[in-house]
């Protein structure tokens, strides 16, 4: 009945999963893994290069870069998951509602989405942050809102396809109501493309959060995030390249991992792709 696990088919997902898994573990257990506190200043050891005590060196205030990168993973991951979650849930609800009820509902909802879509993502996030105020929670909300139109369009298109399926018709013939049809017939059948999109949204959320922090709109110092570390590191590029390199690499690896998962999922879940 069930074929043996197809490693070849899932190899990209596994590779991405391992990368993201490591970063997740680092984020969750940051206080135990990090060798130093990310906040403790040490004026005797500023802007040091890598050493046995500080593997990735120290920053301009003598804080351990490795510890700050590990702690930075916490905020990045939190923001990524919650922002992608906000986008996924709100976008799916809007898209499915628009497709299912059609007509004027569809028209109004999708025009609203197009309105959001018409702003460049970073600009929209900056505007939202400016009006909501700068905090980590607001960064999550702002990035989540940026994702809503994309998810809603995808959900709407997928629902349109499923709605034309006969099993939705026969569900009606069984006397099912709207909610039951939405949750039992439509949701499970549009999940695959949405999950793929979610993985891509994760990586994009990481980038967007870093960009916002870089602009000083995300978490506020001394809270370490990859974005604001990059920002401060920029000023000391000549003295200690490691200061920008470390958070940059962290961003790069995380985005790479999520993209592996996204691409891998897309191929693995696509029924038309045979090996």
């Amino acid at each position, binding site marked *: *009945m069930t074929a043996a696990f197809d490693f070849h088919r899932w190899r990209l997902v596994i590779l991405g999963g391992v990368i993201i898994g490591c970063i997740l573990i680092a984020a969750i257990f940051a206080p135990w893994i990090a060798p130093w506190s990310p906040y403790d200043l040490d004026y005797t050891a500023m802007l040091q290069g890598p050493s046995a005590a500080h593997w990735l060196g120290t920053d301009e205030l003598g804080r351990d870069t490795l510890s700050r990168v590990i702690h930075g993973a916490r905020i990045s991951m939190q923001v990524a998951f919650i922002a992608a979650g906000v986008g996924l849930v709100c976008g799916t609800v809007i898209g499915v509602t628009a497709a299912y009820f*059609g007509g004027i509902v569809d028209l109004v909802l999708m025009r609203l989405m197009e309105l959001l879509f018409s702003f460049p993502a970073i600009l929209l996030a900056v505007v939202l942050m400016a009006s909501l105020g700068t905090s980590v929670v607001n960064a999550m909300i702002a990035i989540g809102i940026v994702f809503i139109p994309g998810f809603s369009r995808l959900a709407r298109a997928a629902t349109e396809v499923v709605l034309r*399926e*006969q*099993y939705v*018709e*026969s*569900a*009606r*013939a*069984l*006397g*099912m*109501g709207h909610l*039951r049809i939405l949750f*039992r*017939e439509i949701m*499970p*059948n549009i999940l695959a493309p949405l999950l793929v999109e979610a993985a891509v949204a994760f990586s994009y959320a990481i980038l967007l959060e870093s960009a916002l922090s870089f602009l000083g709109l995300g978490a506020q110092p001394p809270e370490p995030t990859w974005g604001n570390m990059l920002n401060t590191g920029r000023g000391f590029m000549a003295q200690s390249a490691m200061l920008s390199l470390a958070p940059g690499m962290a961003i790069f690896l995380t985005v790479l991992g999520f993209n592996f998962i996204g691409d891998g999922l897309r191929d693995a879940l696509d029924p038309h792709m045979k090996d």
Partner: protein
Amino acid sequence: MTAPAPPDRRSHDRPGVLPTLDIADLTIEFSRRRVWTPVVRGVSLRVMPGEIVGIIGESGSGKTLSSLAALRLLPRQARIAGGRIRLKDIDILAQTETGMRKLRGDRMALIPQDAMQALNPTMRVGLQVGEPISLHKGGPLKATLRAAARLLETVHIRGPDRGIRAFPHEFSGGMQQRAMIAMGLALAPDLLIADEPTTALDVTVQAQVLRLLREIRDEKGTSVLFITHDLGVVAELCDWVYVMKDGEIVEEGSVRRIFADPRQPYTRMLLAATPSIHAPLRPRGAA
């Protein structure tokens, strides 16, 4: 036209018995660019208790539309413009949408054309077959699944306990169609509407499904409205036949009479269009 018509008595007609489905003077309109055009015109038909009634006609003749009207499941751009539909003593057209939802699946069930398409690929068969029960009656999941297994047994699916745990794609075409029939039977409805249920199946499986439908009628007294363009299937299964063309019923009669003595030119044409082993195919006009 020439020979006197043989007596054509409807065997299920008994005085004082209410028809299971009674459609009178039904008109359905379709809108195209906001202009409503009638596509089903003045259709009247009856299905008596325990009777298998066939509607034959080519695609687009309105046979599916007429039967969907009984469930009030017309496509968005269609509307019922006139007529009367009764299920036993219930006036279908007077029901609210909530009232209709209670009737669908409980008092009447639809068996669709392509079972593979009609089963939700993400849900196990047992849950789907038991769906009418959990929807209309409720009760614990375990009992529903047990009922689903019993239903699969009634439609002769071997290993019903394994069957309820399977996903639709693990079933063969014939099994899927039988699972759909099982779903239709779940709450012992008064009326089964079968919309070309055997079109997607090969001939041997088709025969099994037809035998099953007849068996259900014989055992449970369920009325069946059978929509098809396949005359062979009608001859094998139905008691009474309506012939539809261009949204109208052109002829009705017992299967025996329709085949022995078709009165309308269109019916005769339909019969002639069926290849037969007695009259080998030859070019029109040849001797």
